[in-house]
């Protein structure tokens, strides 16, 4: 039972919100219209099983997939897990076994019903071997080998969508939109079943269990260059477009409406496994001490990024502030002076491979090289000066971008580590934040991964986009967005008026 105080508080806040909202926004939400979304990724996949953890590309895929598929639970901006396809959940005292009750009356886009077996199959295929997922009469049982108190965070993020794989490989979802058209970028490649379209057209799912979305159509165009996206917004060719951090200031100066998420992309350096010799430990540390993250975040990225001293961001762990950006050039030089001969970075330049696309990351790579030179460390950005990659890929340093996918810090760190060459694992009981902190500190002290900055995602929004409420962790929640009628395009406005008059469905209306 909740205290009266909290109930009261909730009521007050709701009432306040109501008053404020009514005063501010007189116009009712409008159904209809086409939401044009521009993404930078040139190809995305709507199959969660194909996504690469941490990849920027997959995060774009996830954004679109979340329009088509639903999750068992979602997290709102206030830290509360919301029932989605699961309506109730319980767990045992060890947090190893979780029971989820599945929402009744939910149908896939082809009309077939969502069954516990289908949901279990989908989850099993995306959540890997950490869980044993079994269908029960009314829901699912998820059994974890380790205590999993963060299972709700996991299910509310990452790849854990509920879908049904058809015989032809296509996936069906229960989400607010249906895939109407996927125009491939190029003729079908080796795997014709792979959906790698250049343009995706999504239609509103009239029968969505959570109600029809406001817009009729979402048109996603892929592979738009960054500046082009900005222009598209300005010339009304897009309602929503990704904005690269270096264009944010320009966009804002030009009066563009730009939303940003919490810092979602980690830019970091990692050493190749082969460098893990004792001699290179001091190299790692020297580089770690030589890098000037502050300038990187505040000048090169024009304050559109935050310097990162931790692998996981503050917004996700709450403890990242404990890690300090350790720049200490004199100490770095001292370490450099102690290098034995033959260590890469001393006489012979250490090759820095920029594994992330775009000029911004290249610029950061160059900045790393410049910083390193201050400590007499030779770092050369590969692919800039010399085309020949004669050096073995294992002798270098990589600048990579990592997109935080999971709302569970433990899962995120584990995934990050698993993608590293040595693929080390976290210890048990890492769900406890203190344990996780200890693990992360150990990892950072090993200097195998050197975090540089974290970047938020920036989204440019046209003025007619209403009720945009993207989550800090990058969920766009486009189903809740509605578009203001355009005065200029009377045809569209007329069409959308009809939709507006349509009775929206309530969840379970089909029952």
């Amino acid at each position, binding site marked *: 039972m909740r205290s009266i105080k909290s109930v009261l508080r*909730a009521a007050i*806040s709701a009432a306040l919100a*109501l008053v404020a909202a009514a005063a*501010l926004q007189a116009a009712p*939400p409008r159904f209809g219209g086409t939401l044009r979304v521009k993404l930078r990724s040139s190809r995305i996949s709507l199959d969660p099983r194909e996504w690469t953890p941490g990849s920027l590309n997959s995060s774009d895929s996830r954004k679109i997939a979340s329009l088509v598929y639903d999750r068992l639970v979602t997290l709102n901006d206030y*830290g509360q897990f919301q029932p989605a396809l699961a309506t109730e959940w319980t767990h045992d005292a060890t947090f190893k076994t979780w029971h989820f009750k599945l929402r009744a009356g939910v149908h896939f886009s082809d009309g077939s019903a969502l069954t516990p077996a289908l949901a279990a199959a989908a989850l099993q295929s995306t959540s890997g071997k950490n869980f044993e997922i079994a269908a029960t009469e009314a829901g699912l049982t998820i059994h974890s080998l380790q205590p999993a108190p963060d299972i709700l965070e996991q299910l509310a993020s990452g790849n854990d969508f509920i879908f049904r794989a058809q015989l032809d490989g296509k996936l069906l979802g229960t989400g607010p939109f249906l895939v109407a058209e996927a125009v491939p970028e190029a003729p079908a490649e080796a795997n014709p079943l792979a959906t790698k379209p250049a343009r995706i057209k999504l239609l509103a799912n009239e029968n969505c269990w959570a109600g029809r979305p406001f817009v009729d159509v979402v048109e996603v165009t892929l592979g738009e260059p960054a500046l082009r996206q900005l222009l598209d917004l300005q010339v009304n060719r897009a309602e929503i477009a990704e904005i690269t951090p270096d264009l944010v200031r320009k966009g804002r100066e030009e009066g563009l409406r730009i939303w940003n998420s919490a810092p979602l992309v980690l830019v970091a350096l990692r050493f190749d496994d082969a460098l893990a010799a004792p001699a290179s430990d001091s190299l790692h540390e020297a580089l770690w001490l030589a890098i000037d993250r502050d300038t990187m975040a505040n000048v090169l990225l024009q304050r559109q990024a935050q310097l990162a001293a931790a692998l996981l961001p503050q917004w996700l762990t*709450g403890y990242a502030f404990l890690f300090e950006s350790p720049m200490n050039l004199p100490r770095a030089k001292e370490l450099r002076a102690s290098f034995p001969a033959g260590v890469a970075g001393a006489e012979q330049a250490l090759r820095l491979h920029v594994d992330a696309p775009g000029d911004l990351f290249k610029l950061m790579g160059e900045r790393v090289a410049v910083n390193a030179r201050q400590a007499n460390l030779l770092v050369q950005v590969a692919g800039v000066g010399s085309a020949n990659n004669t050096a073995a890929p294992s002798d270098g340093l990589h600048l990579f971008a990592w997109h935080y996918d999971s*709302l569970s810090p433990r899962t995120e760190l584990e995934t990050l580590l698993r993608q590293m060459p040595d693929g080390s694992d976290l210890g048990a009981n890492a769900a406890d934040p203190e344990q996780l*902190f200890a693990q992360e500190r150990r990892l950072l002290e090993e200097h195998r991964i050197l975090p540089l900055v974290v970047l938020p995602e920036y989204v440019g*929004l046209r003025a007619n986009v209403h009720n945009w409420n993207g989550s800090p962790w990058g969920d766009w929640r486009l189903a809740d967005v509605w578009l203001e009628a355009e005065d200029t395009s009377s045809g569209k406005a007329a069409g959308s008026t009809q939709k507006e008059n349509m009775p929206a469905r309530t969840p379970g209306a089909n029952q």
Partner: protein
Amino acid sequence: MDSSSEFSRHNRWVYPGFLGLFLLIGLFAAINPPRTFVFADSDAALKETARRLAERVAAIPGLHGPLRFEWHPQGNWAEGEGTRWQDSLRDAFDRRALQLSDEAGAPALAVYAAETPSEVVLTAKTHVGDRDEVRIVALPRSLLPPAELRVAPVRLKRQLLYESSDRILDAAWFSDGEETYLAILLYKNFDVVAVRLDPMGQIQQTLPLNVAGLKPTRDPHGELVFHGSQSSARLWGKTCDFSWNSAVEAKCRTEKFNMPGDSAWPADAVLTSPCGDANWTISDPGGEPTARAVLRLAPDGATQSSSATLTSEFPGPVLNFSPEQNSGGALLMVRNLSTGNYEVYKISLACGD
């Protein structure tokens, strides 16, 4: 249990989006405890968390009191929330026989509170011997009452109200009891003119003040003051009383009005967010009178000003600032460097992105 399903997007046209969320939050918080941590009330969860932290801190080997307690709350927490946490923590440390002190020389025990998407994370940090000791506990955010949650996204709204090729000295809202008007004081052809606009932005009245003995100046400035039906224009060296309704000429008297120089920016340049109780302070855009002014608004007490700051660039320098009475908005007088015109903007805060 399934009360959430009574919500549908269909209903939301009545309520704007954030409202729906607020209601969702409120109702879920009230009805649907998402986790199985069950406490008698939210304070119980808070106290339990404080207890766990204190327990862990107390277990740090070699830690002796008295310790100087430092509290570093999440940036956008309301003050009351922080106080509750502090009280609970002090209480919990007391129970663990950890002596706290306010002495500056005592070793610090810093407790940081941070919110993650689903949790509140409390971090205690202290220094023992030559090492830092860190203890961390977390509790689901959903166990805390929503009122203490951070403010909803806020954006700055900006509206051009009036534009003139003549120097705008001041602009202010006034009401005749029925309607609210915008009054504007212009310096036109070396005379001062008062203009009244209706809420639709149409000019209702143009009132030349014909101030006798007003010295022409290169630095005109003035202020509109309203006392009931009486309006006053405070000018350099003169103050004129006039009425919009009577044809009586303005009565001007010699009264020195000092427009403070560069510190003209009012200390109460504050906008209240409609999405919460937070006040947003507008910092002085400063700068040269030949540069475009960038207005910055930051929530009061914000520690991470860079991420929370709202900015808006104006086409020229801000010449004057006139806050609305309830801090709901403010009027800005701006010289447009592109057109050379003087402009009056209304700025206010709006919720949601």
